[in-house]
């Protein structure tokens, strides 16, 4: 067993940390305030190759796999959770197209997403289909005359949906068949019939836009179907399964940063004539935070290793996401507590981190849904 990163992975970590410190941190508070997607920073991520992680070089990617994604996303999350979410969610689209697309689809769409500067999005959720993806009401009807699918429906809570150039969406091609009647499609911004509804006003990760997407007689060439007809549910589950490790990485990064801030603050804040770090009550908080965070990191790395080794990782992906997200809330809460009243103030990053961390327990599968996945895997062994 070897826990060390390769030399290249160590360099990637250094680069991601430098990028987070020099480019993401300076705007983190501002984009939280203004609710604006940092367009320039996304362009810089593209230039350095972050948007091509996990995609083969022949498609404009920068190679690597799940562990590389975890490394980059968690370093970003230390300084700006919204930007970490943006990278993590963007990567779902190219990874899904790489895994399930035809050679033609890969040639056409992957370079645009990896190095062309276009944002990717993944649209499954609908007003009546959250945890229960089988409730999708968006329909895609085949038009033989034009060899197109005509799509009608509404998606909600789609990260980056209103800015994305290329989106992977899900619609029912056989509505009566439930999960076995769902198909995946690649759509592009600007296609007639594709418009955006409201942009949500959120508690956290406010620099990541969450949009409503409206499809009104959206015509998509049949060649844009991703995978097999009626095979969409499997694609959605596989894609989310992999994406969950990215959410665990977001949770990991924010927890790491919260510990660093808490340790620093405890050393500086003097009460009762000595730094509060000298109080055993505070020391024990730090010990708990550090121990649980280290455990969460190792479970996330393990899930990433399983994924990169081509082994089954569904249960471990759910475990690492569920655990890291819960840990992030626990750690950020204690770090804020250690900061006392200052932690509650807008001027300190912990208040934002506290709001940001919460999302990791909700999107790409709630904690409860993960427990369903985990218990099924464990009890059916």
């Amino acid at each position, binding site marked *: 067993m070897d826990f060390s990163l390769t030399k*290249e992975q160590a*360099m990637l970590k*250094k*680069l991601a940390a*430098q990028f987070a410190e*020099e480019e993401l941190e300076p705007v983190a508070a501002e984009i939280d305030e203004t609710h604006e997607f940092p367009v320039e920073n996304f362009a810089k991520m593209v230039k350095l190759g972050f948007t091509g992680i996990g995609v083969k*070089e022949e498609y404009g990617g920068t*190679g*690597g796999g799940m562990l590389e994604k975890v490394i980059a996303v968690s370093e970003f999350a230390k300084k700006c959770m919204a930007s970490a979410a943006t990278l993590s969610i963007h990567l779902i689209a190219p990874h899904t197209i790489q895994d399930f697309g035809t050679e033609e689809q890969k040639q056409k769409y992957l370079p645009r997403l990896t190095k062309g500067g276009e944002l990717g999005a993944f649209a499954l959720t609908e007003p009546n289909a959250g945890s229960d993806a089988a409730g999708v009401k968006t329909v895609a009807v085949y038009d033989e005359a034009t060899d197109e699918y005509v799509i009608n429906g509404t998606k909600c809570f789609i990260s980056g949906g209103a800015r994305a150039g290329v989106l992977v969406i899900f619609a029912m091609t056989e509505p009566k068949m439930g999960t076995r009647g769902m198909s995946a499609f690649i759509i592009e911004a600007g296609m007639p019939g594709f418009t955006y509804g409201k942009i949500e006003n959120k508690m956290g990760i406010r620099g990541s836009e969450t949009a409503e997407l409206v499809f009104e007689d959206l015509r998509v060439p049949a060649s844009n179907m991703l995978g097999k007809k009626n095979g969409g549910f499997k694609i959605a589950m596989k894609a989310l399964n992999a994406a969950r490790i990215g959410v665990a990485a977001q949770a990991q990064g924010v927890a790491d940063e919260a510990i660093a801030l808490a340790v620093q603050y405890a050393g500086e804040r003097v009460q009762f004539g000595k730094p509060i770090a000298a109080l055993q009550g505070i020391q024990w908080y730090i010990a708990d935070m550090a121990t649980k965070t280290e455990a969460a990191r190792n479970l996330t790395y393990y899930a990433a290793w399983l994924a990169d080794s081509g082994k089954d990782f569904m249960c471990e992906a759910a475990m690492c996401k569920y655990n890291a997200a819960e840990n992030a809330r626990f750690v950020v809460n204690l770090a804020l507590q250690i900061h006392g009243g200052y932690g509650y103030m807008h001027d300190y990053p912990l208040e934002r981190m506290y709001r940001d961390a919460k999302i990791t327990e909700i999107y790409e599968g709630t904690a409860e849904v993960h427990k369903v996945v985990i218990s099924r895997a464990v009890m059916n062994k």
Partner: protein
Amino acid sequence: MRIYVCVKQVPDTSGVVAVNEDGTLNRASMQTIINPDDLVAMEQALMIKDATGCQVTAVTMGPPPAEGMLRELLAMGADDAILISAREFGGSDTFATSQIIAAAITYTGLNDEDMIFCGRQAIDGDTAQVGPQIAEKLNLPQISYAAEIKKEGNEVTVKRMLEDGYMMIKQQTPCLVTCISDQDSHPRMMSIAGINAAYKKPYTVLDFETLKDEPLIELDKIGLKGSPTNIFVSFTPPLKGIGVMLEGNDKKTTDKLASMLLEKHVI
């Protein structure tokens, strides 16, 4: 065309500074970074590479772990890297350092259209001597304090920043340029594609055996023995006491100031 960029790995002075009993720096116990001016020199070279497609070679003299720094420079975009490293080279001062680097560049080859870039100065030794000394030893023209460098054919145009203005200089290559950092210089970051290539690019170690026949390499001109600088003692200068503040804008206060300065023989 090839640009050699001389880079030095220096202790990160934002961390702990440790000194050996003999007064030399205990480099092993300190975190290291790439000397900031040298990153600027690398950026200048890479900008010329972007424009002309020339070859950029990172050169350092240092212990074997300096490889990590060279790989990062390859990940930034340098084409190849040279590590000059040998026991015989250890303990070199600026004279010996420049002697060895000059020998390594001669050994590797310097053509008519080539240039050597250095940082202006290293944040540890701080002498700003190594660059100019390399130029002297290679008998090359040198341009210091460069803020902008443009290359056309075998001619280079350099904007030198001086305290009270700037100076534009035209010079034929080969030549040596030392670069300064200012607010406008932002050395690029590594890229992921660069990282993927960093360990695949040409990497050469030049040891004593390889360089020993170079005319510049003589045992009394390299290493500790060949270093005219001796460190007798190194110490942290005692802090000066806090100054005296005089308040008031009347004649009485200025008289008092004048008498205090007189007393200290300042005026």
